[in-house]
């Protein structure tokens, strides 16, 4: 695969890694040549992150070795990998918004002259680094004034300092709007043309085709195949990512009934620049899946419907009333309940008990004239805990002490307490164990059977066929496909979400 005669700068030989009860990597061989852009694909948990952590020195292999530019990494760790020229840019940017581009470039290692920090030298070197990547930015600009694409490029430019040999980019475009992506791709191509090996983790096949020569696909800790991108069709990639064991245990078998009343009618909903003109009808008693890779606009869609973000256009009609842009409380009043993607940051009140975490959505139901009845709170909480099988010693236990699955059930119970009829679940199974996942699926089906409308967002596409009557695929901020039970299948969803037509 490598250009003949070129020694590989990244050479992973027979590496295996086992965590407590997961075999994260199995006998992986992985080589990248200087100047090569290698795409790395795989589902969540396929082993991509573990491989990246091996390369950047953050983890030690149980067996096998990592050789960088001919030097075995051994136990040299993160600092050793850095000295050998490896840099990793993660999805979460690590820039300080209030400081300038130049200061961020030299973060913690600011240049100094006899009179203190040498701003002029830093600005000059920064300007040179930006020019090298054809990035037109003033080094004196505070990072907070930059768009996310520009911030991403500052982050990449920062990694260019010293003797960069291997650049690892972990989904660098997931937070970008479609129009900004090409700038990052141009920068990546520029860096590769200087002889740097780039490992590019992404799920967007169109990008991969534009930037990478070869792609490696991982599954269940193994490197399944490495092939030139031109020889890989979308179907090939999907097949490799899912393998043969991809068939779901139990799909939703019956097609959705068409005669169910529409509860929420969304027309032309847009949240610039992440979501463009989405139309959808949500029906009572159905579970509607939203499939899409990170950055496809799924969270924006839910937040716009739930009144969390004001849409830049379009309408959300419920009971004949347009609630678009009228805020969370109006949406809640109309029976909409959102369980947020980041449960810990946006979902739970860590210091309050399970009971209060549940009834917080509607105090009126557990008291009169603002005076709460402890007995009403307790009985509401206990019955919800029983209904959702929340495991805890009592309803007063602080929610922060519960497992992820139980916390998610409590956040969902909050909307059952408020008698919401439209439940928007953003990644409800993230960080949830297998047993609790199965319980959540069953619960969602049960809620739909009682007439609720449920929107189920998940980046684990395997779970959508098990819960959804209907799945809409979002790509680049648009709905591109609708698949209806019993035809909802993981491979079809993955192909539609990643596709590049």
């Amino acid at each position, binding site marked *: 695969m490598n250009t003949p005669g070129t020694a590989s700068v990244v050479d992973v030989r027979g590496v295996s890694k086992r965590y407590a009860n997961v075999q994260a990597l199995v006998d992986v061989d992985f080589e990248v040549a200087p100047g090569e852009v290698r795409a790395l694909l795989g589902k969540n948990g396929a082993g991509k992150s573990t491989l990246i952590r091996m390369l950047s020195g953050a983890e030690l292999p149980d067996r096998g070795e990592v050789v960088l530019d001919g030097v075995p990494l051994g136990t040299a760790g993160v600092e050793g990998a850095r000295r050998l020229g490896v840099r990793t840019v993660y999805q979460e940017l690590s820039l300080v918004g209030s400081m300038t581009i130049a200061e961020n470039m030299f973060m913690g290692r600011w240049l100094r002259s006899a009179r203190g920090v040498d701003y002029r030298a830093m600005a000059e070197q920064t300007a040179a680094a930006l020019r090298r990547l054809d990035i037109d930015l003033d080094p004196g600009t505070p990072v907070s004034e930059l768009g996310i694409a520009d911030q991403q490029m500052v982050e990449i430019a920062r990694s260019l300092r010293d003797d960069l040999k291997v650049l690892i980019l972990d989904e660098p475009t997931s937070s970008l709007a479609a129009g900004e992506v090409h700038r990052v791709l141009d920068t990546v191509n520029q860096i590769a043309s200087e002889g740097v090996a780039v490992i590019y983790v992404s799920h967007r096949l169109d990008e991969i085709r534009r930037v990478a020569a070869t792609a490696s696909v991982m599954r269940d800790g193994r490197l399944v195949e490495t092939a030139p991108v031109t020889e890989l069709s979308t179907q090939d990639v999907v097949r490799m990512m899912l393998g043969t064991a991809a068939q779901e245990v139990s799909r939703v078998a019956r097609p959705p009934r068409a005669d169910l009343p529409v509860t929420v009618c969304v027309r032309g909903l847009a949240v610039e620049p992440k979501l463009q003109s989405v139309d959808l009808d949500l029906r009572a008693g159905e579970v509607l899946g939203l499939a899409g890779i990170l950055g496809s606009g799924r969270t924006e869609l839910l937040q716009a419907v739930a009144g*969390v973000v004001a849409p830049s256009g379009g309408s959300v009609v419920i009971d004949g009333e347009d609630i678009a842009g009228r805020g969370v409380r109006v949406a809640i009043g109309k029976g909409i309940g959102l369980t947020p993607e980041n449960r810990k940051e946006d979902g739970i009140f860590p210091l309050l008990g399970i009971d209060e975490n549940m009834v917080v959505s509607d105090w009126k139901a557990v008291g009169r004239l603002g*005076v709460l009845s402890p007995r009403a709170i307790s009985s509401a909480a206990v019955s919800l805990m029983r209904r959702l099988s929340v495991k805890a010693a009592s309803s007063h236990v602080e929610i922060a002490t519960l497992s992820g699955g139980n916390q998610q059930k409590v956040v969902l119970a*909050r909307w059952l307490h408020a008698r919401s009829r439209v439940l928007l679940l953003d990644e409800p199974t993230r960080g949830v164990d297998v047993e609790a996942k199965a319980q959540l699926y069953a619960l969602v089906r049960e809620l739909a059977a009682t007439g609720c409308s449920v929107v189920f967002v998940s980046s684990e596409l395997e779970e959508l066929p098990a819960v959804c009557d209907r799945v809409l695929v979002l790509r680049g901020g648009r709905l591109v496909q609708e698949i209806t039970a019993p035809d909802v299948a993981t491979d079809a969803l993955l192909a539609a979400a990643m596709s590049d037509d």
Partner: protein
Amino acid sequence: MDTSLSAPAKATARRRLGPQQLNIIGLIAAIVILAILLSILAPHFGSLRNAYSILQSAADVGIIAWAGTLVIVAGEIDISVGPAVAFWSVMLAEMAGPWKLGLPLALVLTLVGGGLVGAFAGWLRARFGVPSFVVTLGLWLALRGQAEFMTNALPVPIRDNAFLDFIGGALPGGFPVSALVMLVLFVVYLFIARRTSFGRSVYAVGGNARAAMLSGIKVARVRILVFLGTGLLAAVVGIITAGRLTGGNATAADGLEFDVIAAIVVGGTSLSGGRGSMLGTLLGVIFIALIGNGLVLMGVNPFFQHVVSGIVIVGAVLINLLLSRRASPDSV
């Protein structure tokens, strides 16, 4: 089911001695030890008259600390209460005296004004996101300055009045009326904090403001109301102060805000919001009042009293933090 009960049961047992409970027990122990020490070291400490004197000095701090606890639980801070007390004592004297509004109306206007000024501070915080420390720092300067400006920092006398004499004085037997007001308001705030949707919303907003907003809590309203509370109770203490001094005084309640914050923090309320209890604050108020009283009785140099208070307050919070870290080692 029976077999799985042991693990949760153990969890409850540990919960029963969570950081808050440990803090309460620790404070009670500290108060008992302090009282024993003082009764040995200071001859008059154990007298009834001294107990009333402790209660009276506790009242000014305590009344405001109830509302202040909710402010801090909401993740905010109000440092303007000392100057607010002085300002409203002056306003009461001015309105009842030179402005000829009559005492009843002056009292009502003082309470309404106190609440409005507090609500205004809360509104600046809630509507524009001005940090509450900055808003109340501004008020801290402006209220004291306005009171001194109006009076040239001289006392403004109020004509003898039965109501003011009562509120600033003592019940037959010597029990201070202000301490009675403090205890009544304690029960009121205990109820608000534990049993009303407003009180629980304060804990929710302080624990996670974004989750509170997403759950449909009116976050801005909660923030305005907690400051309305401290403003209102500062006016109450202003009235009591005017009663005790038989007039307004622009230099009254000097440093009261720090005693209030110290009592709340010693009582185990977290400055980062979401955690705190009225019972803890009550104990914190008693603790602070005991130290102040003891230092006076022992004849410690008044300047040096502040040094001791400072060390004791930081020490108490430090011990509190170390204890709570031991109680829940897995939490950071």
